[in-house]
């Protein structure tokens, strides 16, 4: 009977390590989202949870498995969540203050909210990506 031995190379080990770190973070993000859902703070609303979850999901799954300083990635992730909390927490306050006064402005705010959210998500994601260090194995050779 043949016994197959599986040897994991350094590269694979590194990839597995990064992936498991990302999964743990993703799990933590999911737990914190669920906890936030139970908090009755005026700052926590559906928008905060929806956009933060989208950002965390995108960032953790795409940026964390790449090479680069873990602390930089984590700080960028936190920065994104703070931005989400500030904008999406502030947005309903803006909305409620303008609701009685200006309906058109209220509608305008409803229209631009997803645009602003897309802009910050992509900007912070790009910032996070620019902090990674690229792989050395790329075959491109410019001669």
């Amino acid at each position, binding site marked *: 009977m043949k016994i197959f031995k599986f040897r994991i190379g350094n590269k694979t080990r590194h990839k597995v390590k990064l992936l498991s770190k990302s999964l743990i973070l993703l799990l933590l993000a999911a737990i914190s989202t669920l906890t936030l859902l139970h908090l009755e703070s005026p700052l926590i609303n559906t928008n905060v949870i929806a956009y933060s979850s989208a950002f965390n999901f995108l960032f953790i799954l*795409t940026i964390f498995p790449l090479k680069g300083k873990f602390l930089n990635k984590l700080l960028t992730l936190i920065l994104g969540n703070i931005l989400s909390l500030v904008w999406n927490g502030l947005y309903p306050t803006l909305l409620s203050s303008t609701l009685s006064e200006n309906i058109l402005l209220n509608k305008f705010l409803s229209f631009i909210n997803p645009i602003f959210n897309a802009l910050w998500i992509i900007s912070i994601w*790009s910032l996070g*990506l620019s902090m990674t260090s*690229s*792989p050395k194995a*790329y075959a*491109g*050779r410019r001669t």
Partner: protein
Amino acid sequence: MILEALFTLISAILLLYSVRHIIFTIVALHRSKTPKENVCEDYQPSVTVLIPARNEEKVIGRILKRMSELTYPKEKLQIIVINDGSRDKTGKIAEKFSEKHDNIEVIHRSPLKGGKGKASALNEGIKHAKGDIIICFDADYYPQVDIIEKLVAPLADEKVAAVQGRIVVINEPENLITRLVALERVGGYCVGQKARENLGLISQFGGTAGGFKRKIVEELGGLSEDILAEDTDLTFKLFLAGYRVCYVNEAESYEEAVNSFNSYWRQRLRWAIGHMQCALKHLIPVIKSRKLSLKQKIDAIFLLNVYFVPILMAIAWIIGGILVFNGPSIFDIALWSPIPFLTYASVGNFAPFFEIGMGMYADRRAKACKILPLLFPMFLYNVVICTFALIKLCVCKLLGRKIGWDKTLHHGRETVITEKYK
């Protein structure tokens, strides 16, 4: 109700495009090597390099000098410059190189006969070509010295009829437009083309920094002169005839990117009209084809319709605005919310932000990703270009007019090529 249904339909189409690009990004990142099966590195057929040039005095010398430096055996290499009715010194410069090098030839077309587009010039070159393989370069290109070896290797496979190399922007640091075009190019080639090659989908022949088997293309009637995107047209003609196009990421060539909004408009308008012409010509044959697999058919449909995406996106924004300003109900807001995000999934010559970002990472230039959010204004510009292209195409079809070729001007700037690369 009708608006909401239309909005849902458009959102679903845009979502499908995004999913396609997510798949491409994952595949390109995790399958970093191009499959090496059927690649024969000892394969050295006779090759003819075609360089169509019209008023290219600023760049023709650079590419011809490079041609003289190629490592491919000189006895198997014929270089033909097609001086396509130039009114400047292009012909004279090319003649000087021809006198010095035996394998460089120049075909002169009179200003009356020339200027009918790249396809017409290439067809003229094919008539004089002696090589089994035709490789095309635009006059502003600057390829690697061993690019011919890299490009011809996959052509040893009978089923591979054309090959495409990677294009890198030569004047990237020049201004913001060239930087953004460079980002688009990285996303399109390093991720889009690479993933399509790895998945066995429709790898695209780009008309330059690539080549094809002369006999096969001659049998298919040469390059279509009535279509502005003769390269995309050839890609589909080859796939529909049962052949395939191979993408070689390692075969790199520099190009001069457009550096002003005016040049960008002219170039992209030509691409958009050409691509839309291909969609009208090949969509039904693709659906009916028995030579394409199901996944190739799906990819072909996506690829053929890609220049309609910005128009769909613009419609989605307008309907989204109407719904939100008329309501807004929770349903309307829920429908509208993902649209701006999906817009960013179609920027960069239709490569989404994550595709471009991952391409930059793989290309070891992740730091340049900081300007990625600025692709949004370029996308808005593309919306106008594609809408104008569609209107122009419809008007020309109705009036039976032929759409003329609008040439991109090149300035010969080489901000990237340093002594190190020479």
